[in-house]
């Protein structure tokens, strides 16, 4: 399988996230999650045919073919084997941990992968900016999920030293603070419009893994308001395989719905 020369950042983000998923994953998604849902469909169409996806947390093993509407919309439940009743069934599987993988983005993400999408400001009740709210991230952070974080706005306003409001629990204050609270799993990978990052296993601080084509580690650090764990050498994020790109463009997301997520991003796609 050859790699492609011509690709855009949205395509690179989808393919990179897809490659992180395996046939063992059981994934559910929330609203406006075009990049994760594209990645799920792409992984399932390629290296991870056994991957289980619960579309919008409702449509079990849904087969909509392509991204045809908002990711929480009934259009995405097409071909599923069950509509999962939310109150009992979905929350049982989520609370106990059967549904284990979730993807999250937010207005603020800190060095330990804690996330905020509620307010900007020092006082919750007197916000400088009111955001939509914590939604599923407030649950998933504490309910033992393997969390994949994505962001199309890698800048110092999004990647902050400490979130103004910790809506979603990541690695808390780092080290073993998450484990001490009795919480399993946690944030795994962070995929942005500039780079890929993970978390250093002991300190749980965010660590640079690879930089996208044309981006330097120094640029990533400049766009990050906390000090990244910086390995001695940082490779370029592998270019997408040609076949993955073809499937993404022609089958998975032919309307390029994923580009909606780049509103307000400095990266043009």
């Amino acid at each position: 399988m050859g790699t492609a020369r011509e690709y855009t950042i949205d395509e690179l983000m989808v393919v990179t996230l897809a490659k992180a998923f395996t046939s063992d994953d059981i994934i559910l998604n929330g609203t406006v999650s075009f990049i994760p849902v594209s990645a799920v469909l792409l992984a399932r169409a390629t290296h991870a045919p056994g991957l289980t996806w619960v579309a919008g947390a409702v449509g079990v093993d849904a087969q909509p073919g392509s991204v045809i509407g908002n990711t929480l919309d009934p259009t995405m439940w097409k071909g599923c084997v069950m509509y999962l009743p939310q109150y009992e069934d979905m929350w049982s599987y989520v609370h106990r941990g059967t549904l284990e993988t979730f993807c999250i983005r937010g207005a603020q993400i800190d060095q330990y992968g804690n996330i905020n999408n509620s307010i900007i400001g020092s006082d919750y009740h007197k916000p400088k900016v009111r955001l939509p709210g914590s939604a599923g991230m407030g649950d998933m952070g504490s309910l033992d999920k393997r969390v994949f974080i994505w962001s199309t706005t890698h800048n110092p306003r999004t990647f902050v030293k400490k979130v103004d409001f910790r809506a979603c629990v990541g690695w808390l204050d780092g080290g073993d603070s998450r484990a001490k609270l009795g919480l399993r799993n946690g944030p795994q990978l962070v995929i942005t419009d500039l780079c890929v990052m993970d978390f250093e296993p002991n300190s749980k601080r965010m660590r640079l893994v690879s930089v996208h084509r044309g981006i330097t580690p120094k640029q990533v650090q400049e766009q990050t308001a906390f000090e990244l764990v910086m390995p001695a050498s940082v490779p370029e994020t592998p270019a997408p395989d040609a076949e993955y790109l073809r499937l993404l463009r022609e089958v998975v997301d032919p309307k390029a719905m994923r580009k909606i997520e780049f509103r307000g991003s400095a990266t043009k796609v």
Partner: protein
Amino acid sequence: MTARKEDKLVSLPQAAALVRDGDTIAMQGMGTQMSPLALVRELIRAGKRDLQVAMVVGGIGLDWMIAAGCVRKVLAIIINLDEFGMANNFRRAAEAQKLEIEEYTEHQILTRLGAGALGLPFGVTRSGLGSDVLSLHPDTTKVIECPFTGKPVIACRALEPDVAILHAHRADRFGNVQFFPKPIWADVDVFPRAAKKVIVTVEEIVENEEIRRTPIHTGIPYFKVDALVHVPYGAHPCSLFPKYNFDRTVFQRYADESRTPEGTRAFLDEFVYGLKTHDQYLAKLGGAAALKSLESWD
């Protein structure tokens, strides 16, 4: 309130009169899906005040109510318009500190309602352990020690809303409410069981015999329903899966016009205050042919 096996069919204004100023109302809805919006428009026209609105996901109806000055407090996990972006009036009211917001995780608010439905003082969850969400409502969520394992869990105080409002596919006159498919969303499931009063608007009224032929679709039994209103397309501009999709044109207009208070006011004048009945609303949308075009999911 006792809900006997008797005719529950009322008009929208009669149903709205069951909601009192200051009530806590549990309102079904998502960003773009399944919400009793014909009734919401009626509540706005009736000038309701000081409502405390509990939802899982707040959307366009809640944003209208906030803009119209009906709402004192919101209990929810998120308020947005899905891919149409922010609920602008919610944002403005929050930033101007004119709205109380009790933000929960989804399983916290559902656990509160679940305890209310069971008549228990509280329920427990682990959702939100370690988060700042807990700090927002010490009177309703508290970390306690499990009496058996010693592990931390969150006690969520029972919530019994004064009234639940929902939109469904069909019902008979007694208020046997059916859903096609059966209840998927948590609000449809737990709101009517937790609330003291239940008002349901439906697309279609059928005979009791038809309900008895298809009891597998019944989600709420007559004894829990206080009032029923027949309003075809009563969730518009939200969707009612699988009958009709959300109205992209109206959502986009609202997303654009609600960027300013003046734009919001003009929108509400046109779609809410300026139309006194649901029939006028449907006529404004262009009648049967225009509504038929919403019945596509591709």
